């Protein structure tokens, strides 16, 4: 009587292991994704709070919301205290967790108009986050400045459409010297192309740069790329490949604070066979239209080890 059960347990165990193995190698939908537009996640250094963008298609509208890890589950999001009125997106925690950078068009009171994005920052106070402050010149200009990313030495990386770039959006950086940002410099030809290049994200040592680009030669409209710093120079970026990239958009790479996971945003369809296996009923249809994977952006994660990247 015991033997068949033992045998089944063994089979089950093997299946579990295999299942875990495939899971580790594939991008997984992250818990906070819904039928609306989520993306651009940033974690507090202790990994206990996630800030991310939430919006809805066609409106050009997004807010920064936050969720907390409680007993292993992410709580129902709440509006970030500094968001909820203007177009805000792309939160990013400074490595020490004391400041949160984000992009916003909040100089404008018209929340749906396409207006000028700048980079803003809030600082942690005993009472919570400060009022947002515009980073000002030389970072912000009359062109678009978006997608802030800050390294341990205080340098700010961001995207800009300012004149003098390679085309579209380029990634720039400004060093922090004596508490002030130096004039932003273009990250150069190893990273920037004539297409749109954006959303810089570094590993903890600053030796690996992930970013997004809609350059030709990718799997789809936007793909994620990686570049390594060798002898002080960024090597030519390469496409992260099929474990991450699809013909849909992949953008906004972000690493978990422990460096184990690469998070990113994708508007891929979960049921992308283009043809459903059978006709949908109305309730199945409505469920599909209103769930993650409907083709509004969602947040995904993949184990960094599954990408088999060169070691820095």
């Amino acid at each position: 009587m015991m033997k068949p059960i033992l045998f089944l347990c063994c089979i089950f165990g093997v299946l579990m292991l295999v299942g875990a193995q495939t899971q580790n190698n594939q991008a997984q939908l992250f818990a906070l994704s819904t039928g609306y537009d989520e993306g651009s996640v940033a974690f507090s250094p202790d990994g206990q709070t996630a800030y991310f963008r939430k919006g809805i298609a066609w409106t050009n509208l997004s807010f920064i919301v936050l969720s907390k890890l409680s007993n292993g589950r992410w709580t129902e999001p709440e509006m970030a205290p500094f968001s909820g009125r203007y177009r805000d997106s792309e939160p990013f925690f400074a490595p020490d967790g004391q400041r949160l950078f984000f992009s916003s068009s909040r100089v404008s009171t018209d929340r749906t108009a396409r207006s000028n994005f700048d980079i803003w920052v809030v600082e942690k106070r005993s009472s919570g986050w400060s009022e947002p402050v515009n980073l000002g010149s030389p970072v912000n200009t009359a062109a678009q400045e978006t997608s802030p990313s800050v390294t341990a030495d205080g340098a700010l990386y961001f995207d800009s459409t300012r004149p003098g770039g390679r085309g579209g959006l380029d990634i720039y950086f400004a060093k922090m010297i004596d508490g002030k940002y130096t004039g932003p410099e273009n990250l150069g030809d190893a990273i920037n192309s004539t297409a749109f290049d954006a959303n810089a994200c570094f590993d903890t040592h600053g030796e690996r740069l992930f970013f997004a680009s809609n350059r030709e030669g990718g799997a789809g409209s936007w793909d994620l790329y990686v570049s390594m710093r060798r002898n002080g120079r960024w090597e030519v970026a390469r496409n992260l490949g099929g474990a991450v990239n699809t013909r849909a958009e992949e953008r906004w790479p972000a690493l978990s604070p422990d460096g184990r996971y690469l998070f990113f945003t994708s508007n891929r369809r979960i049921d992308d066979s283009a043809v459903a296996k059978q006709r949908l009923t109305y309730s199945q249809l409505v469920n599909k239209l209103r769930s993650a994977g409907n083709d509004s952006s969602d947040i995904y994660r993949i184990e960094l080890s599954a990408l088999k990247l060169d070691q820095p």
Partner: protein
Amino acid sequence: MNIQRIVIPIMLALVAALAFGAVVQRRPHPYASDEPITEPQIFAEGVISTADFDDYLAFTPDGKTVYFTKHRPSFSSGTIVISHFKNGKWTIPEVAPFSGQYGDEQPCLSPDGNRLFFSSNRPVNGATPRRDADIWFVKKTAKGWSEPVHLDAPVNTDAYDWHPSVTSDGTLYFVSARQAEKRANNIYRSRLVDGKYSSVEMLSDAVNSDRHDMHPWISADEKILLFVSEGRPDGFGNDDLYVSYNRNGAWSPAKNLGPKINTQFYEYSAKISPDGKYLFYCHGFGDINLPDRRVSYQELLGIFNSAHNGFANIYQIDLAAAGVER
């Protein structure tokens, strides 16, 4: 037997039947309103116009059944669904028997209600969906709708052929991107001759332009053409609705329906209701109803989960108020 004892009740019954008939006659179509609708009004909110991307509406000739399309958030991959007016309200929709597997949209009924045309990316042969769309139709049979029939060339080509509308004599108006390299999407017409669509002509430049001209709706008598054009100099932003009248075979210059209908957002797929009294059309792509102050997360979700979340809905207005001559 007194003849009057039979005749009088019969006459009374006749009068009652006529009076009842008059009441029914006065309000035959469920979408009809006792009050004038002089400003655009969202149609059947919560059932037909919902938090989803709802558009492309088509009534049966009796007005008691409506076909419309639900899209994904990106506006791709439509599914055609049906709602019936029963017991004083529109029923929860069901997926049309011929839809629910491929990308189907733009349902259009022939004026006699015996054919329903639509566009689809379904494969003509094999199992792989097409990259473009073609025009298909289903025929009414004793057992419901027939299997979809694919229209042959010259209506369908390897370019997008879609947005069908049909007159009483079977003349098909539709949109094609077959000359997209020279122009854009434009409006075409094909006459039904001996049961076949054998030639296709592009409508004159009174209607078509170098921009996208789409979503034709042709009246059963071929006198009124409603359509959409993108970004014309006389427009109010993005896609606007236009009307052109058939004057002895020539189309009058397209007239913008004006700012009561057209906005900075997208207006498209206008149709005159079967009773000829209302304009139905679609509006959306970004029109969200948010208060001008900070909103909480719960408020935001409430707006996202409503019909006022920036996707498309179906709107209704009196034809006279829409500036369309009948």
